[in-house]
Structure formats: structure tokens, C-alpha cells
């Protein structure tokens, strides 16, 4: 299917009837720019509505948006201004090509009575037209458009693969963690690869086989002459009947638990915000408890470190005093040495005046004359002065003083320097923990504002009830499984007797027997084919998804591709074939790749309509997404907000891939206006 034109009338924010989107015939892809709340989501919901007559709520996929503003507080499908003015006529019209044909699909609701304002859905009439514009036989209108669309265009349950808000990518990120994958997501994947066709086939043929066999068995029982065989047949039939009754009773109980579960789930869904807040409160309280524990252990550590804290605080002064003392000691040693040298020099000079030989080497010296004696005496006098000065200086500190200072400083010194770092690290950790505590308390306060104490208790009780109901349900499912196996065993025994009977069979019996065999064989064939087929699809999706992943990822040189497992969980493989945890952005890229690969491998041809495509992808990855989808898909309609793609930049960069682009703006309050940018 390729969409050629969409017209909207009084559709959500699109007031009035002049809202048209045309898509190019050569390049049917398009970009519709618009800030959040400007009507992007309403655009793709219009396609959903035209095809299926209803619009699913984004957060509650099993619930639908109301048609009119008086139906609920949710934003309605009929434009509120039009409704307030008494105009309840709203419509979506799509022109599209499919296979070789061109079609017009109109889904319009208009008031049943001209003299009465439409207040509720029953006051409106549906006009649904699906017209084959090329059919010249005079029978251009499809009789059952809803069925035709589901069978020929796209089954409603698969529409989420093609019409989607990129918020859904986060759901697909769960594919990287098999414990977190939602059951509904697994069902969606099975649906898109169409495996239910085979599962349903096996189921339908098995039921048919059972039916044919029951008819055969009844014919057999009526005509049976052998008394022994008749008796055994009767016994087994009664046993089977009694087991079936027990199974029915278990199934009745199961249904009752399922109803209770549904009702609890519905209640929790209705109280979704409260539930979220309640879960958040529970989570925050647990975090707070653990935070309190950490704070307390950190404080204990600090206490033990703090016994040395006074040393830590005085450490700089103690170090400086120690250094000063060492310096003093050195100076003292230096001075003592010098005094010794001076004494030696004085003695030597005095010997020289007296004409004595050298006291060191014993060499004779000449007797000094008067001038030399004066010089020697002056020199001796200078040396004595220096000696006196040094002797005075070296008196303080005395050895006793030094010893006292040393002894005083020793206990003040830290055993090792690490204590100071450890104290500072602990202090840092404590202040971090206290900050976390503060943040948690403000989050708790915010969450508690959303929900009262009583409500919180109700939610917690509902969650606990739900868990216990689910436990009961699972237990019953196991019991029923066991019962079914018993019934199957007995039935096989009974079947063995009836089919191998030597009594003469009527043509009717022959026919029923053959029908049973045929349907059983077909059922086995479908069951047997399922695994082979799933494996083929798994491989196909894996190959395609890997190609897309490497084409979109901004880090593709480090990756080998994706591995899709049997249960369709996904691993990102790096170049060494190891599984990679993948960053947030890479897992979003993975999600895009898997969705596109699944859509492509389904064999369904339908435009991809992607709302808010960014979702934390980063500019480079996002540009790769635009490039990949616009280049490789027959028709893609992107609906980026202003942060995801600026219209000027978008037209300039991607204009070559698209036939048209549009920009949504708001006029007269809350009304959406469509501005055509690139025209074909």
C-alpha cells in the first residue's frame, strides 16, 4: 500500500475541512515537521482510524480514545471546537494504491439527526466507503471494507509495526534482556512473522480430527457386536468423561481466577498514575533504607578514623616543627664542626708564630718576621672572634631542648599519611550519601503528593493480591495440563481399540476414519513445519536486522551485527563475536533495526509512519535512521519534532528522498494548520 493523499475534517486538533497531505507519485516518502502537541500524533492516528475505525491509547493499547469530548477527559477524535459549535461531523479520507489498483477509503461520522446536537456515539452515523477507483464493472465499492483491509492491506494487530511512536523503541530495548521481555511483545513478534498461521492451523486441524473421530466413535459404538470390546470401550469412555468433567471444573476455577486478575489489572490500569507513584514510593523507600545503612556504616568508619583526627588536623604544624628541628640539629652539627676546625687553625698559627714545626706533617718552618707575626696574630684574633660567636650561637637549643621537642612531637605524628586521604575520602562519600538522601527524600515527597497514604495502601494490596491470584492461576494451569495429558492418554487407548477393531466398517465409518487421519496428519504437518519455518524466519530477520544495524549505527566499525535468538531476544555482537552490553543509543539502534527487519520480513507492504523518531538517539545515529529508512523503504513518513529535525535543515538534507514535506503550526489557540513546504 502506498498512501497518495490524506484529507482530515474536524479530526482532533485539525478544525474544519481544509487539511490535506499529498504524497509524491515518484517519491511517496514525506516528512511532517511539528513541535510537540502540534498534531503529529493525530496525523498517524488518522491513518489508524481510517483503516480500523478506532484509535488505541498510547499507554493502554487495549483501550481506545473517545470519539467526543463529553465521553471522557481524554482528548477526543472529534475536534472540540467543532463539537462545542454543534458540528459533530468528522472524517478521514485516504487515497492509496495497492498492488495494481487505486482506492479511496472514507471513514466519516456525522449526526443522525439534523435538529439535535449529537451528544453520544449512538447519535452519530458511520459512513464507511472503500472504493476501487479503477473498477469499471459498476461495483466499485467493497462490501466489507473492514474485513478487506485486514485481509488485504494490514491486519490491525500488526499495525503497530508500521504506525508507531518511537517511544515503542524502549519496549524493544527489552529484547536485550530475556528476563524483561514482555509477553505481549513476544506475541507481537510471533504475529508479524506469521507463525500463528501454523499454530492456528495445527489447532484447527486437531479439533477437526477430534470431531471426525467422535463421529466415528459414535458410529462404532452403535454397531459394535463384540461384548468384550464393547465393555472395554464403555469403561474407557466413562473414564474419559469423568476426567473431562474434572477438567471442566478446573477450567471454571481458572476462568474465575483470570476474571479476578483482569479486574485487578483493570483497576490498576485505571489507577495507573497512583500505581506508578506507589511503585515509585516503594522503590524510593527501599533506596532510602539502603542509603541510611550506607550513611551509618560510613559514619562508623569516620568515627574510628576520627580518633586520629587531632593528629590529622595538626599534621602540617607537626611536620613543620619536625623540619625546623632537623634544620637546627644540622646547623648545630655544622657549627660544632667549624668550632673544632677553628681551634685547630688557631693552634697551628700559634705554633707558626713560635717557629715550631707543623704539628700535622712535622715540617720545619722559618721564623716569622715582625710583619708576618702581626698578620698571624690578626688572623688568630679573627678566628677567636668567630669561635666565640659560634660557641654563643651553639648553646641553644641544647641537646636537652632538642630531646624534649622530639619527644613532644613524636606522638603527634600520623602513623602513615594514608589516614589523611582516607579521612577525606570518607568525608566525600558521606557528603555524597547525604546528598542522595536529600534527593531521595524530595522524590519521595513528589511521589507522595500524587498519592495519599490510603490510596498507596490500596495499590500495594492490589499488587499483592494480583501476585497471589497469578500464583493460583499458574497452579491451575499446571493441573489442567496434567489432566489434559491423562485424557489424551486414555483417548489414545480408546482410539487404538476402535480403529483397530476387526468388525466390519460402513462407508460412513471409512470416510470418518479417513477424515480423522487426514486432519491429524495435517495438524502434525503444521506443528512439524512450525519449527522449520520459525528458524527460517529467525535467520532472515537476523540477517536483515544486522544489515540495518550496521547501516544505522554510528559505531558500526566496532560491531559484527546482531544475533537473534530462538525466543527472538537479541544480542549486539562486537567484532570479536562477543556479546556487547551496548550503550543506550546502540540499543535504540538495535530496536529500530529489529522493527524494520520484522516489518520487511513479514512480506507486508505498508508505509512506515514514525512519530518522534529521535528518542535519545543522538544526531549522528538519527541522521543515519532518516537516511536508511528514506533510502530503503518504498514509503516512509517521518514526524519529527523541532528538536529532532529542523525543517530548513531537514528539507535541505533529506529533500532529495521525499516528494513532499509539511510543517504543522498552531493558529487561533489550539487549532492545527498544515503548511506545505516541498511540493512535488
Amino acid at each position, binding site marked *: 500500500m502506498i498512501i497518495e493523499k490524506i484529507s482530515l475534517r474536524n479530526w482532533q486538533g485539525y478544525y474544519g475541512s481544509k487539511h490535506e497531505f499529498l504524497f509524491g507519485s515518484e517519491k511517496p516518502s514525506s516528512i511532517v515537521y511539528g513541535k510537540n502537541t502540534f498534531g503529529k500524533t493525530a496525523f498517524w492516528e488518522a491513518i489508524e482510524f481510517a483503516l480500523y475505525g478506532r484509535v488505541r491509547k498510547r499507554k493502554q493499547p487495549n483501550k481506545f480514545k473517545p470519539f467526543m469530548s463529553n465521553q471522557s477527559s481524554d482528548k477526543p477524535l472529534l475536534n472540540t471546537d467543532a463539537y462545542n459549535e454543534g458540528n459533530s461531523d468528522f472524517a478521514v479520507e485516504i487515497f492509496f494504491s495497492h498492488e495494481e489498483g487505486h482506492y479511496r477509503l472514507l471513514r466519516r461520522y456525522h449526526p443522525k439527526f439534523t435538529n439535535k446536537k449529537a451528544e453520544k456515539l449512538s447519535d452519530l452515523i458511520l459512513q464507511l466507503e472503500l472504493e476501487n477507483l479503477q473498477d469499471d464493472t459498476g461495483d466499485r465499492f467493497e462490501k466489507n471494507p473492514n474485513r478487506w483491509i485486514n485481509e488485504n492491506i494490514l*491486519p490491525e494487530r500488526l499495525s503497530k509495526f508500521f504506525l508507531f511512536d518511537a517511544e515503542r523503541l524502549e519496549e524493544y530495548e527489552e529484547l536485550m534482556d530475556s528476563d524483561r521481555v514482555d509477553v505481549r511483545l513476544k506475541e507481537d513478534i510471533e504475529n508479524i512473522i*506469521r507463525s*500463528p*498461521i501454523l499454530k492456528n492451523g495445527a*489447532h484447527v486441524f486437531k479439533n477437526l480430527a477430534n470431531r471426525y473421530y467422535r463421529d466415528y466413535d459414535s458410529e462404532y459404538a452403535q454397531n459394535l457386536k463384540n461384548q468384550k470390546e464393547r465393555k472395554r470401550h464403555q469403561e474407557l469412555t466413562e473414564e474419559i468423561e469423568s476426567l473431562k468433567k474434572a477438567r471442566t471444573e478446573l477450567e471454571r476455577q481458572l476462568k474465575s481466577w483470570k476474571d479476578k486478575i483482569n479486574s485487578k489489572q483493570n483497576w490498576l490500569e485505571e489507577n495507573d498514575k497512583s500505581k506508578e507513584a506507589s511503585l515509585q514510593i516503594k522503590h524510593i523507600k527501599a533506596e532510602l533504607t539502603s542509603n541510611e545503612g550506607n550513611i551509618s556504616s560510613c559514619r562508623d568508619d569516620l568515627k574510628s578514623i576520627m580518633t586520629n583526627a587531632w593528629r590529622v588536623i595538626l599534621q602540617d604544624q607537626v611536620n613543620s616543627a619536625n623540619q625546623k628541628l632537623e634544620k637546627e640539629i644540622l646547623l648545630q652539627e655544622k657549627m660544632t664542626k667549624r668550632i673544632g676546625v677553628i681551634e685547630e687553625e688557631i693552634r697551628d698559627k700559634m705554633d707558626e708564630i713560635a717557629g715550631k714545626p707543623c704539628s700535622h706533617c712535622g715540617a720545619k718552618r722559618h721564623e716569622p718576621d715582625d710583619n708576618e707575626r702581626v698578620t698571624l696574630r690578626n688572623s688568630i684574633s679573627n678566628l677567636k672572634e668567630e669561635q666565640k660567636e659560634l660557641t654563643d650561637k651553639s648553646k641553644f637549643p641544647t641537646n636537652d631542648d632538642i630531646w624534649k621537642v622530639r619527644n613532644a612531637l613524636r606522638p603527634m605524628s600520623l602513623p602513615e599519611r594514608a589516614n589523611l586521604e582516607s579521612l577525606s575520602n570518607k568525608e566525600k562519600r558521606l557528603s555524597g550519601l547525604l546528598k542522595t538522601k536529600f534527593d531521595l527524600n524530595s522524590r519521595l515527597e513528589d511521589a507522595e503528593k500524587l498519592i495519599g497514604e490510603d490510596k498507596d495502601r490500596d495499590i500495594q494490596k492490589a499488587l499483592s493480591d494480583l501476585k497471589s491470584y497469578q500464583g493460583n492461576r499458574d497452579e491451575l494451569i499446571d493441573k489442567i495440563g496434567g489432566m489434559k495429558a491423562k485424557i489424551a492418554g486414555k483417548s489414545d487407548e480408546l482410539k487404538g481399540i476402535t480403529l483397530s477393531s476387526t468388525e466390519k466398517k460402513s462407508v460412513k465409518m*471409512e470416510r470418518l476414519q479417513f*477424515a480423522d487421519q487426514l486432519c491429524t*496428519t*495435517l495438524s502434525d504437518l503444521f506443528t512439524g513445519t512450525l519449527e522449520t519455518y520459525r528458524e527460517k524466519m529467525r535467520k532472515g530477520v537476523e540477517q536483515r536486522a544486522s544489515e540495518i544495524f550496521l547501516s544505522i549505527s554510528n559505531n558500526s566499525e566496532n560491531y559484527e551485527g546482531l544475533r537473534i535468538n530462538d525466543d527472538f531476544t537479541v544480542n549486539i555482537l562486537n567484532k570479536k563475536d562477543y556479546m556487547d552490553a551496548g550503550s543506550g543509543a546502540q540499543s535504540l539502534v538495535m530496536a529500530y533495526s529489529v522493527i524494520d527487519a520484522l516489518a*520487511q520480513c513479514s512480506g507486508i507492504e505498508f508505509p512506515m509512519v514514525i512519530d518522534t523518531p529521535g528518542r535519545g538517539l543522538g544526531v549522528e545515529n538519527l541522521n543515519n535512521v532518516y537516511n536508511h529508512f528514506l533510502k530503503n523503504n518504498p514509503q516512509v513518513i517521518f514526524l519529527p519534532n523541532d528538536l529532532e529535525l529542523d525543517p530548513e535543515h531537514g528539507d535541505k538534507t533529506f529533500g532529495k528522498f521525499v516528494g513532499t514535506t509539511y510543517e504543522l503550526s498552531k493558529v487561533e489557540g489550539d487549532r492545527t494548520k498544515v503548511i506545505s513546504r516541498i511540493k512535488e
Partner: protein
Amino acid sequence: MIDAEEEIIRTLLEEVGNDPILEEFDEKQIRNLIALLINTQFDDDLKKTQARMKIMIENILDIKFKVIQ
């Protein structure tokens, strides 16, 4: 690119050839059966699908047992 529906038919047809009971079926009939299942993949009322399937099976049986009679 894989076309899921075609792939299902192809895989089934590969398997059909191995079973003598299914000799009664030609490719067209198998395709018809699959087409019915495909069209009712999302039909919540599987009984309706079953009823339609039964009609198809009955037609095949009529042909076989007319020959025998």
C-alpha cells in the same frame, strides 16, 4: 526479502510431498487452506475458521469417496 506468507506455503509444500495420506491434496488445495488460515490469522473466533475449513475438507472427502462408491 522474505515474504512470510509465501515462505509458510513453500515450507508446508516441501513437507506435504513426504506423506501418502496427503496425496489427496494438490498444491492449489494446500494454498487454499493456507489462504484461509492467513485471512483468519487474527480472527478471534477460531471456530468460524474451523467451520470454513471443514467445508473444504468435506469437498476433498466427497471427491475421494465418490470414486470409492
